[in-house]
């Protein structure tokens, strides 16, 4: 694949806006989808998929030479559906059939969907499996990158920390874990449930090269962090803590404690779809 990126910051911002609206439309058609946690990682996925960080071939999703993207926060990644459709992994018409009988796109994505590598519904699996993939690629002298996108809530799962130690031990510098740090899990703020305290310090203590992006909904800020991380080769796995807002830009949903399971009114979505960037 041609790795030369064909984009500008304006282009990425427009894509992010389009994905935000398409994600709301999916929720409008299928209210059972988890919309709040799918709005927080939009700038992360837009940068990965449109910003030249993932070299993939939508006509051949299992192409051996692809960069791997393991999406650990499965149900909070429905914003991936419009991205994958737009890139040609499947048709745009599929977006009308999310959670519908006969459709391939479910409420929680799985690898039957072109573009998804693993099963993601159960949390805390992505980092370990991604570490195994990264180790395999090292052993085969492959230069491709492995990205794992997790939520911060799922970092409560101990399996992640087994994998963090493992990846540092084996100097998996082809592995980047991106934490969509929206700071709210199902029943409220993670800080009030079991606090991660300082994630940057935790990752550093586990031997990871770590960066924090405070403005996680700034396309350029996320792009800059990914760019620095890509060029950073110091024999350590890399972590990007991206501070985001659950339910971003949706009144009543953004930052709400129970936003994870909250559905939005149709009329509100109609209003939001009229919003100009």
């Amino acid at each position: 694949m041609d790795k030369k990126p064909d984009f500008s910051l304006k282009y990425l911002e427009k894509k992010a806006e389009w994905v935000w609206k398409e994600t709301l439309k999916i929720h409008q058609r299928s209210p059972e989808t988890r919309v709040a946690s799918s709005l927080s990682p939009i700038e992360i996925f837009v940068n990965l998929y449109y910003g030249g960080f993932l070299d993939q071939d939508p006509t051949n999703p299992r192409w051996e030479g692809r960069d791997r993207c393991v999406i650990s926060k499965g149900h909070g990644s429905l914003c991936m559906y419009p991205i994958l459709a737009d890139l040609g992994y499947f048709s745009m018409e599929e977006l009308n059939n999310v959670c519908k009988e006969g459709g391939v796109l479910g409420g929680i994505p799985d690898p039957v969907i072109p573009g998804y590598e693993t099963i993601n519904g159960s949390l805390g699996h992505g980092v370990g499996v991604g570490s195994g993939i990264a180790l395999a690629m090292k052993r085969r002298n492959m230069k491709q990158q492995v990205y794992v996108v997790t939520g911060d809530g799922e970092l409560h799962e101990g399996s992640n920390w087994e994998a963090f130690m493992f990846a540092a031990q084996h100097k998996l510098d082809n592995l980047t874990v991106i934490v969509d740090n929206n700071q709210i899990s199902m029943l409220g703020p993670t800080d009030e449930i079991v606090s991660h305290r300082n994630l940057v310090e935790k990752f550093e203590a586990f031997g990871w090269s770590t960066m924090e992006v405070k403005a996680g909904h700034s396309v350029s800020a996320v792009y800059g962090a990914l760019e620095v991380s890509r060029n950073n080769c110091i024999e350590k796995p890399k972590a990007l803590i991206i501070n985001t807002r659950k339910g971003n830009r949706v009144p009543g949903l953004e930052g709400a404690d129970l936003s994870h399971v909250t559905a939005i009114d149709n009329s509100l979505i109609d209003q939001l779809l009229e919003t100009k960037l």
Partner: protein
Amino acid sequence: MSDKQLSQPKAMRDSLLESIYKAMLQDSDIFFVTADFGSPVLDKIRRDAGERFINVGIAEQNLINVSAGLALEGFKVFAYAIAPFITMRCFEQIRVNLALLSEVRPMNVNLIGVGAGYSYVVSGPTHQCYEDLTLMRALPNMKIYSPSDQVIAAALPKQCLSNRGIKYLRLDAQVLPIIYQEKTLSFGDGFYEHCHGEDICLIATGYTLHTALKVKEELAALGILIGVIDLFDITGFNLNRLGQILASYKGVVTIEEGFSGKGVWMQWCLIL
């Protein structure tokens, strides 16, 4: 393995690892991953397999997840730990990243659990394992091998490497008498009929084959002839062939280490 080597009784674990060791020297696509569990033969793998030997530490969840990742990239993986830990500590990882994922994405991962049943005699209930057959049987796509001696154990790696999928190999930890000869061993039917009896047939698996053969001898001394069958391929045996053999019996008794009403016994209830 030469006949002379096979004639020395050893733990199934060691004969199986010896075969894996030899395969790894020939095939650079084999990975061996352990959760900090060893054996003298494993020391040779550590020494000679180079970067294709990995110890994840005492971390069975990561053992499974890393193995899944390696297998997604085409490596043939052996994952190794004590039986209760590799089946129960990480059951959800096995379910999601092996049993379910292998339905969609091809992989070859072979879980080796050492210490089936009561075989870690002095270690107590944490290290003994009575639930593994029941649990592994419950998972989709999981194939289960339960060898009864070191000769079958030594033959298993070849079987595992040439057949894709996910498998669980449960091994007794003790040094047991040798039952089979390499030349006559066949995986074809997934079971072996040791002797045909009159009214009753015993079906055993793993360690319990040795018990069944003793029972047969004791009953023979009383003039009672029973059949004995060793079921070593728990999920892939030839049901029709076994059914034909069992048709001549009045009763079938299964003998296994586990809790009543589960495991292979339950399988037979369903079949019969």
